[in-house]
């Protein structure tokens, strides 16, 4: 069984704080993966707000907020267990993030010793 990180990206700051309904949808999605015993790491939320996020660039340039060169920012991640990347992708497809125009990057985890 391989491990894959699912990295969540959204582009709208307002979407970062979910409504109770959205929260429930996310939890249902996470619960569904956990119920298949395929949750490797429940992951974390990464705060994008000023004071909680800075981007460090070459030549000592430090900007406030997350890295947003592509108009989106990472909002969090989880790690799932799957036989193939296709299986991990099909888990990602069920996530409610697409309703708010977000996207998910699926990346196989290569563990460093």
């Amino acid at each position, binding site marked *: 069984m391989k491990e894959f990180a699912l990295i969540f990206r959204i582009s709208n700051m307002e979407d970062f704080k979910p409504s109770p309904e959205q929260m429930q949808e996310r939890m249902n999605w996470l619960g569904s993966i*956990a*119920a298949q015993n395929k949750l490797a790491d*429940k992951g974390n939320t990464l705060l994008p707000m000023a004071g909680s996020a800075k981007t460090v660039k070459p030549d000592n340039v430090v900007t406030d907020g997350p890295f947003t060169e592509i108009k989106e920012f990472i909002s969090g991640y989880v790690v799932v267990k799957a036989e193939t990347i296709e299986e991990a992708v099909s888990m990602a497809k069920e996530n409610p993030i697409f309703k708010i125009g977000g996207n998910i990057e699926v990346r196989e985890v290569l563990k460093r010793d």
Partner: protein
Amino acid sequence: MEKEHSKELLPHLFRQEHAKMIAVLCSHFGLKHIELAEDFVSDTFLKASELWAIEGIPENPTAWLYTVAKNKTRDYFKHLSVFESKITHEFSSREITYFKEIEIDNTTITDSQLAMIFAVCNPINSKESQICLALQILCGFSVEEISNAFLVPKETIKKRLFRARKNLRNDHFKITQLDERSILERYDTVLKTLYLLFNEGYYSKSGNQLIRKELCLEALRLALLLNQNTLTDSLQLNALIALMCFQSSRLEARTDQFGDSILYENQNRALWDQSLIDKGNYFLVNACGTKDSNQVTKYHLEAGIAYWHTSNDEHKWQHILHFYNQLLVIEYSPMAALNRTFALAKVHSCKKAIKEASKLGLENNSYFHALCGYLYAEEDIAQAINNYTKAIEHSNSESEKKTLKREVGRLMTR
């Protein structure tokens, strides 16, 4: 008191006092000699059964038992020390175990029992032998009773106990007094053991129903014992006790007069024990810490799930689903995965739950097929019957098979 009472009183006293007396004696001369303590206690009860049948039951039977056990212990050590000083002394200068007078009051008894709980709950032991050991030493169950409770041959139970007792004797755990370090070291194992003990009584559908109920009550008794001492009390313990109270409130409603199980949905709610539900609420409130020390453990989540099961709130299944989601994120178990799917059906639809169930990978589990049988019942009777039939094939429990067959029969006549 009248003589004929001694026959009824003794087994009852035996259960209650046997474990306590052994704990008191062991706290005195250590776990290495637990067999010795057990011999003294057994002798004491034997003497009681002989004497009480002739002379009647003494005024205070418990005190009588303690005095006799105490005297037996003292005599043994006196004899030993005479032997050691007169004979052995000339050959070796081994340390002689002198007998100190045992003080017996309620504090000693409670403290010894607490210490014994921690001594018995050793993380080395396997889950099965751990429960057997706890039942024997902490709850005073006989090998026969344990084997009845689990429907496992006596020889198997004996083997499990043998291994576990070897670990107990060779362990360096000091039973004399409980200190914070040893509590911390074993706390999780202690709670886990009580949790398993309770579940063994509550969920397994095999074996003697009466003994199973007693397992639940024993687990609750030991948990309450931990609750009474500030050193061994904790938020998660309160959550565990709340869980046990909520679940126990349905003990009477879960089986019919033939001992067959009644599914939650068909239970007569008037049979739920409101006083246990109230107790559960009390402990659940105590399980919630302050804002700074607010920990959510699996016991909290399971207590929350059990709480909502006692409620008639229209949104209860949403809460239950939510807690199952959280529970699974903390720790996967097939049972939680199946129960989550059931809650999902209640909140959303059976159709959605069927889709989720197909991903669980639990095709070897009889409960999985029973769940699918339930989920298909409204949509596709043939599929439902098919699933219930598979569940019957996978089940090892006669009473479970009976319940499932009843469902099949019900569907066939629809």
